[in-house]
């Protein structure tokens, strides 16, 4: 039995954040290098890691999306190895090198606490506000982990002569310098999008990238569980 399972033992730590398989994130924690992670995403840890589920820093930054049930981020600190996962979604690890990225809130798994970050609402999309969706812009130099339902795709926005339109349910992340606007497709109203009759897309224009997941399931599983 040990033989078969031994292959799933953790690999030696080589970086602050690594994938363990496609769907699990391994974070090497050390003193003084705190981490923000989605509340409820911890699946295992080794060593001495402490969790602060409702950090005041988050409360201040994220006042917009607080709906009274506590923040969706927890602050993790300590020494050890931390394993995070979000219901089997693919995990994408990004080492920001003085870059910045806007991430759909339910696709954030973890990021270094020393990064600059802020929460914003995307203008023009009533749907976002209604669902309590939020959008985190993360910048600086450090590590970020995203989740994606299925293998994501990255496209250059500026490639086509026209804008790039994305189903908001499938959107994962984008470059913050892109211009974003909501678009309602009149021709197909009630045909595109998920059944609700809301035929919204988000239109991106400018130089930058857009990350999209192959699923229109934007259910925030960690949130639902509470």
């Amino acid at each position, binding site marked *: 039995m040990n033989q078969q399972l031994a292959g799933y033992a953790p690999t030696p730590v080589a970086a602050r954040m690594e994938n363990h398989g496609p769907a699990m994130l391994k974070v090497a924690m050390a003193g003084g290098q705190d981490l923000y992670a989605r509340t409820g995403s911890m699946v295992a840890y080794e060593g001495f890691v402490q969790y602060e589920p409702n950090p005041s820093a988050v409360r201040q930054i994220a006042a917009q999306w607080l709906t009274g049930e506590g923040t969706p981020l927890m602050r993790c600190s300590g020494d050890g190895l931390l394993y995070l996962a979000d219901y089997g979604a693919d995990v994408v690890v990004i080492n920001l090198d003085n870059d910045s990225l806007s991430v759909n809130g339910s696709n954030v798994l973890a990021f270094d606490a020393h990064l600059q970050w802020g929460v914003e609402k995307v203008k023009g999309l009533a749907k976002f506000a209604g669902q309590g969706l939020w959008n985190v812009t993360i910048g600086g130099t450090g590590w970020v982990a995203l989740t994606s339902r299925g293998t994501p795709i990255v496209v250059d926005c500026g490639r086509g002569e026209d804008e790039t339109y994305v189903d908001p349910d499938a959107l994962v992340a984008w470059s913050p310098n892109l211009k974003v606007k909501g678009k309602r497709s009149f021709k197909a109203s009630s*045909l595109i999008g998920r059944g609700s009759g809301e035929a919204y897309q988000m239109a991106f224009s400018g130089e930058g990238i857009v990350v999209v997941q192959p699923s229109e399931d934007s259910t925030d599983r960690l949130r639902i569980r509470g």
Partner: protein
Amino acid sequence: MAREFQRGHKAKLSDLTPGTDLYVGVQIAAPGLTFDISCFGLDADEQLSDDRYFVFFNQPKTPEESVQLLGAQAGDTESFRVTLDRIPEHIHKLSFTATVDGAGQMSQIGPGYLRIVAGGEEVVRYAFTGSEFSTERAVMLGDFYRKDVWRFAAVGQGFDGGLDALLKNFGGEVAEEEPAPQPGSAAPPAFAPPAGPAPGFGAPQAPHVPQAPQPPAPSFGAPPGPPQPAVAAPVHSAPTMAAPLAPGTVPPPAPAPAPYGQPAQPPFGQVPGQTPPPGPPPGAPPAGVPQGTPQAGPGLQAALQAYREAPTGQRWTSQNQQLMRADLTVGGTPVLARQGSMVMYQGKVDFGYRGAGFSGRVVGNATGQEMQLMRCTGRGQVFFAEEAAHLHAVELQGDGICVSAENVLAFDETLQHEVRRIEGHGIPGGALFTMMFHGTGTVVVKTRGVPVVLPVTPTTFADSNAIVAWSAASQVILSSQVRLRRNAYPGHSGETVNLQFRGAPGNFIVVQPYEV
């Protein structure tokens, strides 16, 4: 149109295409085998005098990037980008080879091909099958060679000894070859990234590579196409898990990004946790190396390199296992797709209603929901995906296929299609709706999980909930097996509805591991 080459055929590349920025795709597959596909840049004496011109999984490009390894995509097991203009003078020949990784021989391979795509159009296809080979473990598939001008030759010559023999053939530097070019026989070495030429795989190409629309931009994450998902998928997606399954194999040949940055094979039997790892990156206990080397190089671009968009060119491109891109500008005809399956589009695309005539007939399938189609017209690229299901592009050339209506994601409007109803007791909703396609075009079929394709024999049965598709020439019979099982759970009627298939040899059915 693509010219079909036979073994031994030669032609000037300028006769085939005016372009010099070429995409070379190789498809080769055999059950249970993996292949290393490499390109040797040889000098005038057909020797590998400069080993920086040996492009393979550990060295994905030449110094001036005239030959780049792009990875599996668009149905190709491996692909290269060759920029003929930039190939230095001393390189006289590019030889594309495939070697079996591990045990196995070339006679086991199924139909494969080497193709050249220029400007989005396939110009040459050299097809081969396992019956042309016997016990060879390596094969030289085709050559680009310089004789006044660049020419292409379909070679198809086998080698018994695998990659070793090939290397010897090209200059005998095997003795000092270092552990880099690894035939499958040896135990996996530490698999350190090669020192000089090829650092983290994605890093060097990071900034703005796929700017130009036509040239095949790197897209490393693209999974193998429909024919061989079972072979490649597990290895690529989970390097740490590959170890117990196949202790003797070398890390995947195709450029999954992870292996390059991975320090070593997972340590077997390591006590999980507190013990400092015995592997190569020493010196630090688990918690001590937080800001260490990134897997693919620092920066946003490098991290996302693995998920880059596949190069444009074909009408239907499988971006990864779960995403399909339709380029409406190629072919110019509209695409019909299931409503809500569009996740993204670029360009000017209109989405319209398909018309009630069709959808009216599909009303009331299993769940009682309508299947509605939208018609995508215009100029641009549309990306389709649904619930992260696996997508397979089935190209029809005059033949027919029946697909369970729930599993149709999108198809060319040029295809003729009709809806059929298979009625029977026990099928949820009273009937199974299928769509029969025939003509010339592509159907995108979605499956939950990796499907199985079975030949139709006199005793082929499938669960009506798990069936995805079958070739239109086979005949469907409903066989209800009414059987009162003693251990039938409460609420279970004891009745199972199976579909039986009959047909001439050559027909097949596709079943998914998920009962809708």
